């Protein structure tokens, strides 16, 4: 997947799961604030991303993700690291 495809797929999945308008998502935006993620909801985010992209995500990895931009880069790196092209 290209970075743009990852961004679009991520935004659609996040909007549906957390019932937010995807047009509000931008790379500089704080992910947890925009999605209103508390500590309980972070596991939902991990479960969603694992299901959507097929990557195994460890808790400490997602803690480091602060913004939407961080998330897109994180997923791009996962794809690169795992040599994985999720369909």
């Amino acid at each position, binding site marked *: 997947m290209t970075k743009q495809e990852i961004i679009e797929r991520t935004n659609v999945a996040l909007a549906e799961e957390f019932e937010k308008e995807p047009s509000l998502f931008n790379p500089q935006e704080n992910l947890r604030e925009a999605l209103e993620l508390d500590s309980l909801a972070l596991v939902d985010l991990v479960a969603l991303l694992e299901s959507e992209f097929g990557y195994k995500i460890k808790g400490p990895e997602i*803690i480091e993700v602060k913004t939407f931009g961080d998330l897109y880069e994180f997923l791009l790196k996962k794809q690169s690291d795992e040599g994985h092209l999720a369909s």
Partner: protein
Amino acid sequence: MLREEQIKSLIRQREPVILIDTFFKPADPEYYTGLKILPGNIFCREDIFSAEGVIEHMAQSSAAMLGYLAAGRNEQVKTSYIGEIRDFELADNPRTGDFLETIIEILSEVMDIILVKARSHIASRPVASCKMKLAINRNVDRQLFYN
């Protein structure tokens, strides 16, 4: 498969509210528990095992799984709390005499919050399912798991 006393070391509930009598780990990431629903179970009304009983059985199953994992790491068993239950579906109430079986699967884990999926059935008949978030309290130890 764990014995009754071993199961007790994994959960904090005591009689008459212990709702698992069987525990074994078939294959990561799924864990299996069971309960023979006996006459007089406090979650039964007449011979019907209540939805609340099914949820409590699922919660104890999840707690036992977390205790088992802790024991496997040679850690003390920690107390966990239910943070959220969602997508609960009850297809059919178990009845006295049924053997309720539940499969617990870890879906994701972030720090001390764990999301599990619980699926209960009787023989091959689906009974209930839900997702449950568990919060582990690292500051509360319980008795050590023993072999």
